[in-house]
């Protein structure tokens, strides 16, 4: 199933794109598994997503932990800790 991935801040810069559409395998069911799957595609993605401790995520625009489910999700965002205000 197609999933839109959004990247923000330095994650976007390192990935080289702001957004992409992917079709991960059915056994990829959590955010953490999705990050592993994205990182395993090629060396550049692997490097961009290497710093897992500083990655945060949102599923369908709601902030979630890395163990959150992505089953049925349409949009997943990956980004560093927020620094607004």
């Amino acid at each position: 199933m197609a999933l839109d991935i959004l990247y923000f801040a330095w994650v976007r810069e390192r990935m080289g794109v702001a957004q992409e559409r992917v079709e991960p395998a059915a056994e990829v069911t959590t955010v953490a598994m999705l990050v592993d799957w994205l990182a395993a595609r090629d060396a550049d993605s692997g490097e961009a997503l290497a710093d897992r401790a500083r990655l945060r995520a949102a599923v369908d625009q709601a902030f979630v932990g890395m163990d959150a489910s992505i089953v049925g999700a349409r949009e997943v965002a990956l980004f560093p800790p927020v620094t607004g205000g």
Partner: protein
Amino acid sequence: MIRIHVGREAIDLTVEMMLAEGAAGTGAVATFTGLVRPDDGVATLELEHYPGATEAALRRVAEDAAARWSLGAATIVHRVGPMAPGERIVFVAASAPHRAAALEACAYLIDRLKTDAPFWKRETRDGEARWVEARDGDAAAAARWEA
């Protein structure tokens, strides 16, 4: 009244204060304004955000504050895009009949915004751009409202 706005234009305090003061039953308005520090060596600050998700997150923060302190108005206005030293990044306001509610709600709005809204700051100093790191104190400040 909940007022959420995210935009690239400068924040107009006259308009924002008029809205906050005009809410029904208002005897007290507490505000917080965050600025690009003019003497910090930063030439420009750029704010990136997650359109759609940002507004939803800010609305949740404002609605939580309005319910918790029975506010007449809760305002969150946040700027995005490039800005210069001295310019306003964020403005929050809480309007209530009495001061304790307004002051506490105002602190809550800015503390929660710092951890719950998808904004990212990139600053340019001496010609070099870098992403601002999150501060540990922000999570602690937001956590003190959980009870």
